[in-house]
Structures are given as structure tokens and as C-alpha cells.
């Protein structure tokens, strides 16, 4: 029998903590039965009315959430309760009188450990279990018993109890390592939070030191989550389950924690009660990781607040923050360990070594000793490259980088997440791989040259240069080597013009595998697609197309010919053509993730999750235009025509800040401006064309009902040879 009435009786006076049970019960009462009642009260009459099936579904979902892992109040109570139970039941280790009492008794430490652990967990879990029953009674009393799902209940119960164990033993470990209550609590919170925050700060620092570090490629989330039972608990709650693949690992982790807690309990010297740290050997093991964590966090914070340089020293704030954080943490740790404010002086040698090591590591990273930033795989080593351009011909305007929006964006209606980026394409030919590597090398060289200019120049020189627009191009690269390794790099905001990598771009845009990655629309099943919008940038009527009954009728429309024509046209585009010619419109498609069943109404479709594709239309898309005509869309004006225009007004901001308006109303001037400018709507689709944003034109049409279009002068019009004059 585990529990004798008079020794560690969990609910008795001698050794038990009845108030732990009482507080847990009250907390769980609000987290379960009360919360259940509040959430379900709106569905009280769910069986009345025609929507009862739908309401039943919703209630079942709510019940799954309430009784599963996703119940946030239960998570909070369980987490807090587990920590409190550990601190309370093992607090005796920090009290000299209690240690003398208990350790003199003929009760083995092993038995003491198991009894106290069992008593603590039973106090908490019995409170949870009783309230679970009360909550179930509430559900049945509200007439929703038929929607009860035992699987959700068991799953939630198992999940909460599992993480309760993990948190409990973490807190027990912390209590055994320290000899004071407040330090036990502090160390517990450190164990729970230090891992994710340290990993986050390392990730941020890596991005800071290594511009080519492609952070998103690396799954930092997993180590961050697994470094803290609390973080893992929160993730599992968000997913409302512990993934089956993780269950064994979690069980193993808990077993390790429990074993470590037991071993420490057996080895813990009784005289540690009242001391800061129970095990002298643990002092450096706690001090230096805490100092390193503090150094990382403070370095990141000061870098964020202070910027890249301190008194002209690059990464000055980072270095300063790291040193100050490390020194402070070491000194504070020594003061805590020794219980004496003068204690810091006695460990200066260790502190000096730590600081030197920290500075050395930071400097190694600042100066990229390993050559990480400059690394480019050899073409013969590379099996394929996945490349994604991030900002093609981006420009700096008023001190800010301006990224042109990609010409493909996906709207996931359920996630409300718009991806503003180019799609990723794969290059698996020798030519393509060589082109990607060549681009990376040029981008690296351009970045290095920029850094040298910044270092050699003044602070003003390092800022925006005299030329108003300076092209910046970047890309993300994922190399798959022939030996199976994957190497991810990014090169962003390299001051390079597209003409400098024109040859490479031409090779890349001729790669079928790359184009497949760019235009994923054409990999979707046609039956899941609907034509959502046809836009002509110049045609005032294009907005009307969205409301046209012909346009909205999706039944009977076979989009396959249009898609085939569109794919052929768009994949034949070359960078050179895109530099010379601007798109005149766009086509937008919806791709329904769940597919479309025959007979589904528009309203039902609107409720579904879908991806949204918008691709540009160029004047050369003859096949596409023909297919659109076949669908009945032929009366579209694709470009501004001089004969339709009354006048064009130029609005210009000068270097001295003056703004002027100039009116052009002769046909020659109008024609000239139309030739040397592009309509503004095209900018989000074709980043190869550079424009002058300080000069924009408003086109006033003869048709008074027609809205004005906006145009920008091209910096590099096709007939000007790059003069930029217009």
C-alpha cells in the first residue's frame, strides 16, 4: 500500500497538503465546468430549428476543444498547478528543520520521493478528474450528452496529465538543485523559458552575423519547442493533440526528467537546506549557461535598440550587450551562490575566461572566419538548386527598401495569409545550376563591395547614394548536393542591376523545371479552378468584368483551352522581353483546395478555402487572348490609346522638394509619353522594368466617365538606350 494514513497521506494533516487540492479544485472548477457552461450556453436550444445538424457539428467541435488539449484555461491551471505542487511538496528540502526531521526518520529517500510525488500529483489530478466529471454533468444537463466524444476526453486527459508530469519533474529538479524557495522558482522558470528564448536569440544573431543565412529553411521551431516542456505543451494544445510520432519521445523525456529528479533527490546533501545551490558541482553548470543566455538576450536587445554600430564600431551594441550581460549574470550568480555581495571578486579568473571566450566567438562570427557568407558550392558537387528571387530590381526610396510585389500571390482564405514573394523554381541542369551559382557569386561580390564602400566612407556616404534609385536584387537558394546534403543561403539587398545578371536570368527562365515552380497554377486540376478576374490596366471597364453575369457564370465553362494557351504564352516569356515590354493586364484564378462538387452553389464555394493566382498578361500572349475571345471576352482595351486621351498631367517632385505640374495635351506629346512610360498597375507584375517614382503622370481621358490612369516614366525605355530621359 503506497499511502499509510499517518505518513505522507495526501489528503491528511500529517505530511499532506489539503490546500493544494483545494486550490486546484477551485481553479479547475472555473476552467472546466464553468467554462463549459459559458461556452455552450448559446447552443442550449440547438435541437430546435433546421440548423440542428450544423449546430450539432459545432457543439461537437466545441466539446472536443473543451475536453481536449486545446482548453486554454485547463492548460494554464495544469501548468501552474504542476509547478506549485512540486514546489510545495518538495519545499521541505530547503528548510533545515524539516530536513533534520524527515531525514532522521526510518523512511528511505526513494520512498520519500515517490510518496511526495504521488501525493502532489494526486492532489492535482484528483481535482482535475472531479471537475472533469462535473463538466460532463454540465454537458448532459444542457442536453448535449449525445454529442459527447470519449475519444476527445481520453486524449485531452492523457495530454494534460503527460505535460503535468513533465512540468512537475522539471520543477522538482530545480528545487533539488537549489536550497532556497525563491531560487527554486527562478530556476524552474529559467528551465522552462531559457531554451526557446536562447534558440530564438541564436537564430536572430545568426541572421545578424550572416546575411546569407537562410533562417527560414532551418526548422528552429522543433528544437525550441523540445527544449521546454511548457513550449511543447502549448504547441500540443494548439494542435489539440500530441502527434503519435512524438509520443514516444515525450514519454522518454519525462522518464529522463523523473530519473534525474530521483537521482538528485537521493544524492542531495541534507546540509544543502538554506544554501543557494545544493550541489557545488552544479554551480558552473548553472552559472555559465545562464550567463551565456543573458549575454545573447542583451546582445540582441541592444542591437535592436541601438543599431548596427556603436561609436562607429560595427556590431558595437551587440558586443557591448553580450559583455555586459555575461559579466552581470556571472557576478549576480556568484553573489547568489555565496550569499555575499563581495563574492564576485573571488571568481574573476573564471569571469575573464568566459568573457574572452564570448568575445572570441562573436568576433569569429563578425569576421566570418569560417567563410560561411562567402561559401558557394562547386557546380560539379551540385545536383540541383531551388532558387527564389526575393526582390528583383527593388529600389531604395526615401531611405526604405521597397519590394515590388510578386506577380503570383496566394490567398489562403482560411489562413488569411498573403505570400508576397516570388515562387520557388528548381534548376537541375548543368546550365541552370551554373547560372544560379554565378548569380550568387555576383550578389556576394556586390554586397562585399558595398560593405567596403560603407566602411571607407562616412556615415552619410554609407546611406543612399546620389543616384535616386539603386537597384537591389536578392534571392534564396537551396542547394542539394550530390552527396545528399542541403545548403541554404540567401543573398538579399545586393546592389546589383538586372542587366548584370541578364545572361543568367535568361538561362534560368528557359528551364522547364524552374518555370514549373514559378507558375504552379498549371499544376492544379482544371476542374478545381475558376476564372475569378480579368483585368486590363488601361480599360476602365475592367472592374465591371467582376460583376458581369457572363463572368460570374462558372457552370459549363471549360477553362482547359484557356489554361493551355496561357501556360504556353507565359512560359515563353524571357527576362529580356520582360525588360522591354510591360504587361497590360492580368488573369486571376481561384483554386479550391477541397475541389468543387457538381451542383455546388457560388455561396458554398465562397465558404471554401482556396488559393488565388494572379498572373500577368503581356501583349505577346496571342494564344491567351484568342482563348479569352473564344470565351466571349474580346472587347477589352488592353493599352492606353492616344486618341482616347484628352491630356496628361506630369506631377514631379524636385530635389529641392518643389512639386510641379506640367500639362501635355498635344497628340505628339501624349504619344511620346505613352511610349516612354508604363501604367502603374503593371509594377506589381513586372519588376524588370525600372521607373522614376518622383515623376508620375495622370492620364485624363476624353470619356469623362472614365477614371484616370496613372503612369510612371521608364528609367530605361526601349528606344532610349538607358538614358532615362522623357
Amino acid at each position, binding site marked *: 500500500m503506497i499511502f*499509510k*494514513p*499517518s*505518513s505522507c497521506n495526501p489528503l491528511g*494533516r*500529517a*505530511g499532506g497538503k489539503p490546500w493544494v487540492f483545494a486550490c486546484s479544485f477551485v481553479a479547475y472548477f472555473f476552467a472546466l465546468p464553468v467554462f463549459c457552461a459559458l461556452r455552450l450556453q448559446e447552443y442550449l436550444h440547438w435541437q430546435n430549428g433546421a440548423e440542428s445538424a450544423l449546430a450539432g457539428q459545432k457543439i461537437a467541435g466545441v466539446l472536443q476543444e473543451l475536453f481536449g488539449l486545446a482548453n486554454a484555461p485547463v492548460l494554464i491551471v495544469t501548468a501552474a498547478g504542476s509547478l506549485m505542487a512540486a514546489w510545495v511538496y518538495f519545499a521541505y528540502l530547503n528548510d533545515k*528543520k*524539516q*530536513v*533534520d*526531521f524527515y*531525514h*532522521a*526518520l*526510518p*523512511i*528511505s*529517500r526513494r520512498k520519500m520521493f515517490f510518496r511526495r510525488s504521488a501525493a502532489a500529483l494526486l492532489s492535482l489530478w484528483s481535482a482535475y478528474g472531479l471537475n472533469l466529471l462535473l463538466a460532463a454533468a454540465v454537458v448532459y444537463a444542457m442536453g448535449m450528452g449525445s454529442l459527447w466524444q470519449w475519444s476527445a476526453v481520453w486524449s485531452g486527459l492523457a495530454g494534460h496529465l503527460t505535460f503535468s508530469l513533465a512540468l512537475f519533474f522539471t520543477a522538482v529538479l530545480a528545487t533539488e538543485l537549489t536550497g532556497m524557495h525563491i531560487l527554486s522558482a527562478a530556476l524552474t522558470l529559467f528551465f522552462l523559458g531559457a531554451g526557446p528564448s536562447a534558440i530564438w536569440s541564436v537564430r536572430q544573431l545568426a541572421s545578424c552575423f550572416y546575411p546569407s543565412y537562410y533562417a527560414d529553411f532551418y526548422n528552429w521551431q522543433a528544437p525550441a519547442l523540445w527544449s521546454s516542456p511548457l513550449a511543447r505543451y502549448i504547441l500540443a494544445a494548439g494542435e489539440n493533440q500530441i502527434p503519435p510520432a512524438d509520443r514516444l519521445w515525450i514519454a522518454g523525456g519525462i522518464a529522463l526528467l523523473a530519473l534525474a529528479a530521483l537521482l538528485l533527490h537521493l544524492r542531495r*546533501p*541534507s*546540509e544543502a537546506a538554506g544554501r543557494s545551490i545544493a550541489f*557545488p558541482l552544479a554551480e558552473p553548470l548553472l552559472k555559465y549557461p545562464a550567463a551565456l543566455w543573458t549575454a545573447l538576450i542583451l546582445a540582441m536587445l541592444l542591437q535592436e535598440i541601438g543599431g548596427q554600430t556603436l561609436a562607429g564600431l560595427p556590431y558595437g551594441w551587440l558586443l557591448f550587450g553580450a559583455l555586459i550581460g555575461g559579466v552581470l549574470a556571472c557576478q549576480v550568480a556568484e553573489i547568489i551562490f555565496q550569499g555575499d555581495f563581495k563574492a564576485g571578486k573571488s571568481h574573476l579568473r573564471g569571469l575573464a575566461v568566459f568573457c574572452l571566450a564570448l568575445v572570441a566567438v562573436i568576433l569569429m562570427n563578425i569576421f566570418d572566419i569560417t567563410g560561411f557568407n562567402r561559401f558557394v558550392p562547386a557546380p560539379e558537387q551540385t545536383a540541383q538548386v531551388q532558387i527564389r528571387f526575393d526582390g528583383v530590381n527593388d529600389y531604395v526610396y526615401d531611405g526604405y527598401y521597397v519590394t515590388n510585389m510578386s506577380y503570383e500571390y496566394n490567398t489562403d482564405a482560411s489562413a488569411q495569409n498573403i505570400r508576397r514573394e516570388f515562387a520557388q523554381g528548381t534548376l537541375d541542369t548543368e546550365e541552370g545550376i551554373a547560372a544560379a551559382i554565378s548569380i550568387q557569386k555576383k550578389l556576394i561580390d556586390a554586397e562585399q563591395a558595398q560593405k567596403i564602400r560603407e566602411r571607407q566612407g562616412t556615415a552619410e556616404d554609407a546611406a543612399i547614394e546620389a543616384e535616386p534609385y539603386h537597384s537591389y536584387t536578392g534571392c534564396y537558394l537551396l542547394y542539394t548536393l550530390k552527396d545528399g546534403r542541403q545548403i541554404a543561403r540567401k543573398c538579399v539587398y545586393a546592389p546589383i542591376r538586372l542587366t548584370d545578371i541578364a545572361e543568367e536570368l535568361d538561362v534560368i527562365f528557359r528551364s522547364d523545371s524552374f518555370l514549373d515552380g514559378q507558375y504552379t497554377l498549371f499544376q492544379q486540376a482544371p476542374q478545381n479552378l475558376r476564372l475569378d478576374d480579368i483585368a486590363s490596366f488601361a480599360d476602365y471597364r475592367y472592374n465591371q468584368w467582376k460583376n458581369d453575369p457572363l463572368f460570374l457564370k462558372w457552370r459549363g465553362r471549360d477553362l482547359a483551352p484557356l489554361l493551355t494557351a496561357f501556360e504556353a504564352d507565359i512560359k515563353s516569356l524571357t527576362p529580356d522581353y520582360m525588360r522591354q515590354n510591360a504587361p497590360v493586364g492580368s488573369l486571376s484564378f481561384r483554386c479550391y483546395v477541397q475541389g468543387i462538387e457538381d451542383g455546388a452553389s457560388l455561396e458554398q464555394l465562397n465558404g471554401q478555402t482556396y488559393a488565388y493566382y494572379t498572373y500577368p498578361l503581356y501583349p505577346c500572349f496571342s494564344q491567351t487572348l484568342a482563348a479569352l475571345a473564344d470565351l466571349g471576352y474580346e472587347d477589352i482595351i488592353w493599352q492606353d490609346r492616344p486618341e482616347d486621351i484628352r491630356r496628361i498631367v506630369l506631377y514631379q517632385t524636385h530635389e529641392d522638394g518643389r512639386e510641379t505640374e506640367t500639362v501635355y495635351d498635344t497628340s505628339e506629346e501624349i504619344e511620346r509619353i505613352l511610349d516612354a512610360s508604363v501604367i502603374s498597375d503593371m509594377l506589381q507584375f513586372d519588376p524588370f522594368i525600372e521607373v522614376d517614382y518622383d515623376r508620375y503622370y495622370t492620364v485624363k481621358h476624353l470619356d469623362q466617365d472614365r477614371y484616370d490612369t496613372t503612369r510612371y516614366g521608364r528609367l530605361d525605355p526601349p528606344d532610349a538606350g538607358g538614358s532615362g530621359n522623357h
Partner: protein
Amino acid sequence: MIETKDLCKSFGDLKALDHVSVSIRSGGVFGLVGSNGAGKSTFLRLLSGIYRPDSGSVEIDGKRVYENQAVKSRLVFIADDPYFFPNATPREMEEYYRGVYAAFDGQRFRKFLTALDLDAGRKISAFSKGMKKQLAVLLALCTNVPYLYGDETMDGLDPVMRRAVKSLFAEEVAARGLTAVLSSHNLRELEDICDHIGLLHRGGLLLAQELDELKSGLHKVQAVFPYTVYPKAFEGMQLTSFKQSGRMYTMIFRGDGEEIRRRLEEKEPVYMEMLPVSLEEAFIYETEVAGYDFQTLFL
């Protein structure tokens, strides 16, 4: 029997016990005396299995104590500041002790409570320091275990209670062969009850001896001489202490009592009386032999 061999215990840089070896026979009271910080409490906690020795051994009847439940079920420890459960009453503590110590005599405990006018249903937190100490002693005695350790047990007790506790210990020793190890910084307190004494100083055991043996061979004499005498007058006799107050001389000799009387009478004292030797006086002699100034050990 309790036996320690080369027992060492340190707390950081502080050496609390340094190679302490002692044998304490069963069925008696061993008094452990020493100044503050001598290591008495540490020694008792090692005997109780609370502390793990850094080196050396602590054994009871040939079995090590630390983490040995069988051995620990035969001993009980009374701390200098005893612990009771929060908001507990003597009755509840009795219940707990009964669960831990199989031979706990509840009836006897309740009888003691009544005799000492301690309310079994009253919260211990409301007791005075002395009452708490009394309760702790009673709980320990009623466990009926063969070994009892008390750290500054008499501290906080009134003179009447001290006498009562001493007589209880004596009864237990006589009735069931209890072996008690009691620590104190007060020699006089232990004199009445102990039959074996040990002196700790700075972690080391200066001496450990039977009280009778300690006192045996020591004789205290008070005499009045008609003339002035000096210590050299007693050459050939082992004079360990010589004090003069006017014509009254108080001397301590080592040796055969009759021989000492005979040789003193040869000096024709006006008055002479043989007095009992106190423990303190015996200690003074023994420590001086060991090269220590006894007075400085306790100042």
C-alpha cells in the same frame, strides 16, 4: 554499540569533523560536550543518518547508518529546534510517530502529556519553546527505540523539567537499556546523567572517557595549614590543581586516595577534607594533559 571510525565531514572549506573515532557502548548516556561550532550537531546528525559522511564510517551494531532504514528504525533524533507539522496538535504528531515507529507507546505518551500538563488537542504552534522541547523529548522517548540522540536537549527547559527529563532518561537506561547521546555546551548539565563523556573541539575529539574513569584517581582536598605552603611542598604527589584562599588551600591530586590522605596528614594540616571532584575539574586536568587550556575552550 555506536562506532565511528575516522569520521570526517566538511561544509565547503569548513572542516566540521576531522577523523573522529569513538565507540559508545549500549545501555548508557554519552554526553557530548564542546563549545559552539565544535561539531556536536554535525556529529549527531551523522549518527542519525541525516548527513552523509565525507569519509570514515558510522555504524550501529556493526551496520552503517546512512540510508539504512532498518538501522534508522532503531534510533530517534531530537533536534535542537524540533520540527512539528504546521497547525498540528500533539495528538496528530503521536499519530504520525505511531505510523513511523512500530513500537511507539501511545498510552505512555498520553500519560506523560497529562503529567506535564500539555494539552493533546492544542496546536503546537501555540506552545512555548520549552513546551515544544518537552513534547519533542516525550515523542522521542515513547518511540521505544534503543538509540536516542538529543542535540542541546536540555536547552530551553526549566530546572524542574530538566531534572524530570534526566530522571526519565535514567529510567529508560535502567529499564530497557536505552543508549542516549546528548550534546551540550554545559558540562554541569551533563554531569548528573552521563556515564560516558566526550569533548569535541574544532571538529576533533579531544577525549572520550567513562566518567568514573575520568574522575577516578582524582582527589580534591580542602585543607587549612598553619603555615604557608607552596606547590613544591607536594613534590612526589601528582598535584594537578592548587588554589589558595588565605590559609585555605584547595588542591586536586591524582593517585591513590589513602596515600594522598596519609601524606597530607604528615603536613599536619589544621583542617582537611576530601571533596568530590566535579566534571569540570576533571576536564581541566585531562585537557591540560592534552595541551589545551580548558578555559579557552569554552570562552
